[in-house]
């Protein structure tokens, strides 16, 4: 249960809101680099934190992210002509550069300098690891560029996709740190999905559907450890990373790539689910890349020409009751990503947390909310930099390890929970 005012604090992320200020403290993923592949290519609409923006790559390859609408009559610049180092509104020819500065108003004499007085709100947009990142906060508080490992490994070692999720970001993110649902909702996929199957970890998972949890605060967020019995009295640990506010990293399985998510608000009722897969030490195989592009693992198939999943609420997520009855899927929905999304969207655009009945295994979620609320208040009251901005907080890994029973996982698995150059992730 969470009080409404606390839920509002975290679920509302538009301009001027406390939760919005929190998100505006970080570099966040805005677009895939492939959406703006070419200089002078078509601009792309993007809505982030309840702000309608337009992104484009100009003639010199400079990236711009600015107010979607022309300052003149409010036309969407999505119809604009991207040419000669700027984006020109097709209505009356007003032209803007990549910083949102108006550089030409054809109806006014150049000598009047009128265009110098027109500037659209804009944000920095930077390419790193196949993602275009933006920072929407105060310029004087702009942090260093993000250093998530998936974004720093060579391009052939990583894969990124994104999809629209039709729910508030928080209920989506909370699914990412809710380890106890895996043994139920995803049980049909552990041994069949090409990006999950074949690891010994799956046997531990399926043998023990009631893991014991340990939640430990980390400098940037949380370690969430799920413990199951292994051989010879040892424990099999799956350790999920959550880094504030919206990064989650799922423990790996076998030598499969390790994966995770960002959950970024589009507005208060929709979010972008960013899904990455990477291997720290080797290129992804063609087979793995094909599976990811085909929507396997944590990725999805799309409606043509969009980032909306092919299975979505308009078609009841293509639910297959026969598959559910036969046990091929637990919920009847196919694919790990849409199994999660379908249930999270079914809660409604913003779930009413005053009605929920959490249990002790939900402590990861309770602690994440606690830390988010604390960070928002510290930011609002004392201008305190929230966790997760520090580069050191981003240099983390999830892990799956077998440990002796008398060792705390934070001690015994310490080296596995941080990035180590040239060393593969710890996995079973």
């Amino acid at each position, binding site marked *: *249960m*969470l*009080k409404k005012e606390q839920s509002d604090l975290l679920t509302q992320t538009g301009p001027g809101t406390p939760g919005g200020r929190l998100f505006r403290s970080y570099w966040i993923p805005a677009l895939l680099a492939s959406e703006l592949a070419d200089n002078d290519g078509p601009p792309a609409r993007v809505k982030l934190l309840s702000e309608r923006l337009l992104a484009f790559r100009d003639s010199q390859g400079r990236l711009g992210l600015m107010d979607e609408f022309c300052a003149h009559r409010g036309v969407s610049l999505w119809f604009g002509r991207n040419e000669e180092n700027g984006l020109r509104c097709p209505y009356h020819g007003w032209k803007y550069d990549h910083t949102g500065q108006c550089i030409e108003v054809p109806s006014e004499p150049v000598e009047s300098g009128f265009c110098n007085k027109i500037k659209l709100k804009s944000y920095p947009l930077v390419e790193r690891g196949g993602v275009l990142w933006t920072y929407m906060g105060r310029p004087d508080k702009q942090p260093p560029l993000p250093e998530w490992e998936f974004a720093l490994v060579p391009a052939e070692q990583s894969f990124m996709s994104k999809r629209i999720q*039709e729910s508030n970001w928080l209920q989506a993110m909370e699914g990412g740190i809710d380890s106890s649902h895996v043994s139920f909702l995803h049980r049909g996929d552990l041994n069949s999905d090409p990006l999950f199957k074949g690891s010994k970890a799956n046997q531990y998972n399926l043998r023990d559907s009631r893991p*014991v*949890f*340990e*939640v*430990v*605060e980390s400098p940037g967020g949380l370690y969430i450890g799920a413990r199951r019995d292994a051989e010879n009295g040892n424990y099999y640990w799956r350790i999920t990373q959550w880094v504030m506010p919206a990064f989650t990293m799922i423990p790996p399985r076998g030598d499969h790539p390790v994966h995770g998510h960002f959950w970024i608000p589009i507005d208060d*009722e929709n979010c972008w689910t960013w899904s990455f897969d990477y291997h720290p030490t080797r290129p992804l195989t063609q087979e793995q890349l094909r599976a990811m592009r085909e929507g396997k693992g944590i990725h999805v198939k799309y409606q043509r020409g969009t980032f909306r999943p092919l299975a979505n*609420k*308009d*078609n*009841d*997520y293509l639910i297959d009751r026969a598959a559910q009855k036969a046990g091929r899927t637990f919920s009847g929905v196919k694919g790990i990503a849409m199994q999660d999304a*379908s249930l999270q*969207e*079914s*809660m*409604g*655009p*913003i779930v*009413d947390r005053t*009605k929920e*009945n*959490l*249990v*002790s*295994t*939900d*402590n990861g979620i*309770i*602690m994440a*909310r*606690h830390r988010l*609320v*604390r960070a928002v208040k510290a930011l609002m009251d004392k201008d305190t930099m929230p966790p997760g901005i520090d580069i050191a907080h981003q240099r983390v890994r999830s892990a799956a390890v077998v440990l002796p*029973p*008398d*060792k*705390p996982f*934070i*001690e015994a698995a310490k080296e596995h929970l941080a990035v180590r150059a040239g060393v593969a992730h710890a996995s079973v």
Partner: protein
Amino acid sequence: MLSESARAASAAEARFRINEPNSRPRAVKIIALDRPSEGIVKRLAQSSWTNATFLTALASAPPRGEPFSIQGWLSDLAGHTKDLVGEINNADQVVMIATAGEDAQAASLIGEACSMKRVMTTALVLGATSISDAALSRTLAQLRPWALMLVIASAEEYIADMLAALRA
């Protein structure tokens, strides 16, 4: 025409969700396992709770290493003796509060009673950042066999938030 899922998940439809309580109050027993935790539990008890009982497991605990009897070992915050089994019998959830580095041997008695009665146990450890890994390990080793959920928290306020989340 909207699909059933599209219509049902809309904000407009949320207005028609049944607005009646969907649970009965849960009885939560919060037990301090050591002296520093007792202070925390006393402060927590000042707040208003639905069905939380605050207890301490150290009032008559014997010196470390000596055997002790279950009788008269648990007490409420006023110092009145409480019967552990009786308390567990009436519990839906037991939360043990421990301080890192302190002796948490009381967890085994409480945990065993909870195990017999199939009552869910959570252990919360505070003060982990101010002691060595080895000292933390000792405390965790005492708690781990008896806690189905173990949380290492940096701030006392987390306990109140957790209890509120659990509708204590």
